[in-house]
């Protein structure tokens, strides 16, 4: 049952010398699906004759804006594209286990690592863009210059924990389902899979909220601590 390591990913096919794994294919599928959905939903004229899909997308964007507004405070506009896309991608990626035969790409370490790297670099990008070079670099020595190494260390470890949190939750849930299937019959894992829907959405929410807090803190405006 547990012969395959959770750190190895299953290779589907090769393009030249490069192996293409299942998480990569799933990720590209989700990306294509989201782009297609947004493109179809925004074809009609906004507010005038938006169809059902257009209205649904409006509701999603409105909710995301108000949620991020609650954390950031005023002027969410520069953060919304990144954080909203992050949340939508994570929800679809975490819930892709519902489709038979698919596995959540976030259950392998590469996808959370890539997402955490994006958050790591966008923290610096927004910090420098909103505060300027000098103010942004000065905040590393803010309470006292003695804390400079600790601040730099915290920058790295929180990115690492962002990655490990998402990976650990999704992968361990996959593991639990595999163990339950092994121990009991066919229909017993269904409640666990329903729990997996909840876990997937909560983890997507937590990842997005933490990314929002990090970015807003580096941009110099935050409401909750």
């Amino acid at each position: 049952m547990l012969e395959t390591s959770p750190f190895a990913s299953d290779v589907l096919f090769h393009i030249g010398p490069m192996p293409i794994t299942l998480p990569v294919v799933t990720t590209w599928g989700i990306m294509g699906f989201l782009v297609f959905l947004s493109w179809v939903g925004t074809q009609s004229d906004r507010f005038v004759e938006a169809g059902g899909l257009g209205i649904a997308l409006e509701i999603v964007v409105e909710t995301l804006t108000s949620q991020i507004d609650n954390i950031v405070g005023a002027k969410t506009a520069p953060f919304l594209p990144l954080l909203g896309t992050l949340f939508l991608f994570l929800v679809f990626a975490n819930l892709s286990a519902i489709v038979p035969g698919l596995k959540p790409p976030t259950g392998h370490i590469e996808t959370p690592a890539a997402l955490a790297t994006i958050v790591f670099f966008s923290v610096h990008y927004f910090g420098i863009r909103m505060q300027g070079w000098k103010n942004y670099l000065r905040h590393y020595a803010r309470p006292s210059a003695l804390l400079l190494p600790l601040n730099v260390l915290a920058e790295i470890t929180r990115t690492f924990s962002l990655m490990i949190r998402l990976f650990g939750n999704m992968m361990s849930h996959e593991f639990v389902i595999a163990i339950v299937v092994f121990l009991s019959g066919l229909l017993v894992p269904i409640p666990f899979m329903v729990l997996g829907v909840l876990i997937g959405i909560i983890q997507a929410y937590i990842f997005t909220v933490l990314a929002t807090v990090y970015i807003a803190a580096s941009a110099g405006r935050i409401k909750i601590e």
Partner: protein
Amino acid sequence: MDIHAISIIGAVIAVSFGAIGPALAEGRALAAAMEAISRQPESAGPISRTLFVGLAMIETMAIYCLVIALLLLYANPFVT
């Protein structure tokens, strides 16, 4: 005892002892949040949002232990 048995014992110890602290901490955090919500039901939204983020932070410690255990079982650097 060979290295495999020691790795399995190490993984069990890591998960079981690593789960104690986060479990106690999550219980305390949840109890405090419940008390705060029952005192001020109108501020349930911000409290539960902060609670979720805090629980995720606490839970990360247990997840670290799980990852260490899985590393010992599947990606052990000392098993050739």
